[in-house]
């Protein structure tokens, strides 16, 4: 080892070396005093132990005092110097050594907590293979420019954010989204830096590299979230500001009254508010870090603390409990051909941006393709009537005019006909009679969980289109897990009563509220809060923004890569993984308990030590030992949440 590296090693290990030296001297000095009559030699060695171990502590204490802050190092320095002045060398060396050892161990454990997230960043590869001038080159990942093509072989980690331009593969996205199952990626799909390409080679057009990747952005946000204090932390911080000076006043007061310097110095040592101020932040940092690694972004201690009190979770239906991919299940013509019903509906809906309109238009395209190919269609196979309206992808004709009736449907004119595609409410508004046979058919479809729309031509109902949005496979299990944890569940949907009832039954949800417009969902949340519930709302973060903001805790789904969802929600699931919800709620509750345990342990330690000092059972050294043990105990307890 040359001088340079020896210096570097010493600098890195300084705290450990100083603690060990102080400990050895302390042990030597104590043995000498205990086993021999060499009292002076023993005293010198013990003072040396205190000076070597205490130099850094005293230096920081000096800065604390000059910067007008009063911390534990100031108290320890006062106690050690005081002990030497009154001839209690053994106590001075013991206090300094035990404090050094405690803070060394504490530093090591805290470093693990602080590094938990950085490990994710270290998983991103340092280099990337890019195609430049037709050749493959290996370059530092941070230097890859936007729109450059990066090649990632099977088994390699993806070095940049980007879109797949060639190849197909399964990608393990766990570092970014927390999903345990790999996600299939093909042309046009987004991939993230830090994720692992498992199967085939991928060519990726870069959209972000270096610090401009989703993973880095998430980690920066999580760090900010870890720093945002919870109400408990702020309270304890305020308390600690007055507590430490009070301990000094108490120690001086005790000396003035009793003239007992040892008692007064011991009060200084045990009065350090270490475990109390360290406990809550460690619990919260560990919980937020764990959540981030599991694909849940928690916006800060305050939100985490509120989430721990949730007793009701409200779910948006479409896109949350269901996949949000509505498809046409059945088209039924009444006195009109099924294909014509679908074609007319597609024309009327052509300019609508509603997800039901997309499903109808897709089905019309599919039908026209199938009819042209002579293959199967989404409808009755016998239906071969090729309407002009559904002939080709482009040939769904534009309506002559088009009007959206918000929350009810559309009214359009085409080829001299008025076409209405909408729900029963729209037909009632317009005084359109629905024959009993059609109403019966609609009731039947809705009772099976389908969403239906009527197709009306010139005031006559000519058909019904039934659509389905498949449930997410995880939905029933998630609802059951929440119920098991004693949390009520409610589904909010714009669908009618019958469809809502069928879906609610399928999911096993406690309660549902149907036929809601977006603003109604907000009112429902307010009503539930009015009933005394602490409500979490789960939605997709865009059209549910008002209810997400109103709820005590807004949980947005599928937030990886979308900054807006993270901005608006209190909690965000990086993937559309509903199973993270029971985990997030129970983690919040566990964190609350953990904070309470830590505060309880810290307060109990101070009470027991205080009683011990007043009854002379606790000395300076045992006071410091118990104090440091309590600090380590709260850190280790908080760190349990890293593995929750």
């Amino acid at each position, binding site marked *: 080892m040359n001088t340079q590296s020896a210096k570097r090693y010493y600098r890195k290990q300084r705290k450990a070396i100083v603690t060990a030296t102080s400990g050895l001297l302390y042990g030597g000095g104590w043995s000498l005093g205990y086993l021999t009559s060499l009292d002076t030699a023993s005293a010198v060695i013990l003072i040396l132990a205190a000076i070597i171990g205490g130099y850094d502590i005293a230096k920081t204490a000096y800065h604390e005092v000059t910067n007008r802050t009063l911390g534990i*190092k100031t108290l320890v320095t006062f106690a050690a110097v005081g002990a030497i002045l009154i001839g209690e060398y053994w106590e001075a060396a013991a206090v300094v050594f035990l404090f050094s050892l405690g803070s060394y161990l504490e530093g090591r454990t805290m470093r693990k907590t*602080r590094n938990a997230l950085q490990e994710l960043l270290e998983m991103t590869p340092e280099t990337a293979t890019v195609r430049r001038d037709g050749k493959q080159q290996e370059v530092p990942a941070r230097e890859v420019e936007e729109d450059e093509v990066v090649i990632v072989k099977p088994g390699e980690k993806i070095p940049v954010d980007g879109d797949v331009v060639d190849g197909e593969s399964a990608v393990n996205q766990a570092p970014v989204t927390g999903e345990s199952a790999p996600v299939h990626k093909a042309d046009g799909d987004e991939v993230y830096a830090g994720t692992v390409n498992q199967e085939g080679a991928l060519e990726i057009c870069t959209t972000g590299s270096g610090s401009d990747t989703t993973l880095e952005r998430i980690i920066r946000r999580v760090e900010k979230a870890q720093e945002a204090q919870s109400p408990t932390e702020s309270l304890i911080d305020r308390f600690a500001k007055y507590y430490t000076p009070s301990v000094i006043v108490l120690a001086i007061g005790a000396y003035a009254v009793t003239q007992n310097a040892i008692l007064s110095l011991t009060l200084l040592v045990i009065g350090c508010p270490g475990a109390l101020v360290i406990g809550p932040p460690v619990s919260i940092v560990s919980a937020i870090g764990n959540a981030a690694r599991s694909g849940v972004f928690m916006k800060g201690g305050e939100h985490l603390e509120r989430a721990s009190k949730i007793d009701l979770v409200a779910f948006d239906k479409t896109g949350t409990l269901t996949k949000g991919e509505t498809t046409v299940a059945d088209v039924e013509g009444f006195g009109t051909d099924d294909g014509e019903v679908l074609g007319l509906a597609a024309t009327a809906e052509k300019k609508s941006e509603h997800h039901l309109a997309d499903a109808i238009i897709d089905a019309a395209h599919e039908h026209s393709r199938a009819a042209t190919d002579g293959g199967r269609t989404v409808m009755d196979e016998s239906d071969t009537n090729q309407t002009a309206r559904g002939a080709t992808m482009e040939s769904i004709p534009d309506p002559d005019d088009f009007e959206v009736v918000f929350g009810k449907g559309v009214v359009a004119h085409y080829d001299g006909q008025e076409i209405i595609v909408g729900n029963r409410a729209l037909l009632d508004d317009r005084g359109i009679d629905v024959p009993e046979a059609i109403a019966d058919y609609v009731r039947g479809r809705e009772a099976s969980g389908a969403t239906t729309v009527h197709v009306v031509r010139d005031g006559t109902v000519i058909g019904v289109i039934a659509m389905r949005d498949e449930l997410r496979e995880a939905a029933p299990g998630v609802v059951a897990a929440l119920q098991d944890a004693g949390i009520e569940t409610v589904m909010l949907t714009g669908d009618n009563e019958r469809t809502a009832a069928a879906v609610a039954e399928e999911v096993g949800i406690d309660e549902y509220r149907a036929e809601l417009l977006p603003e109604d969902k907000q009112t429902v949340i307010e009503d539930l809060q009015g009933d005394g519930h602490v409500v979490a709302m789960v939605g997709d973060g865009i059209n549910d923004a008002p209810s997400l903001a109103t709820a005590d805790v807004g949980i947005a789904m599928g937030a990886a890569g979308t900054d807006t969802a993270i901005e608006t929600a209190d909690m965000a699931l990086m993937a559309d993984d509903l199973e993270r919800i029971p985990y997030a709620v129970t983690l919040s509750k566990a964190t609350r308990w953990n904070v309470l345990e830590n505060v309880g342990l810290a307060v109990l330690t101070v009470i027991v030590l205080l009683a011990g000092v007043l009854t002379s059972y606790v000395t300076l050294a045992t006071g410091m030992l118990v104090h440091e043990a309590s600090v380590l105990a709260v850190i280790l307890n908080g760190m349990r949440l890293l593995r929750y």
Partner: protein
Amino acid sequence: MSETTQFRVLDFDCPTCASTVERALSNVEGVESVEVHYTTGRVEINYDDVRADPDTFAQTIENQGYTPQTA
């Protein structure tokens, strides 16, 4: 012009350590604002690049008894 630099300090023992470093850095010439977080060990310094010498920041942190790492 205003610039920002970051450090990471992993050997804070308690929130007071963070306050000590924060106060020391805010007394450095040209420093406009400082955020020091005990929990994550993140130190963020906004400074005037004409008046401040960023090379002194790490030294200031070291002088308080802590080890800065470049973030």
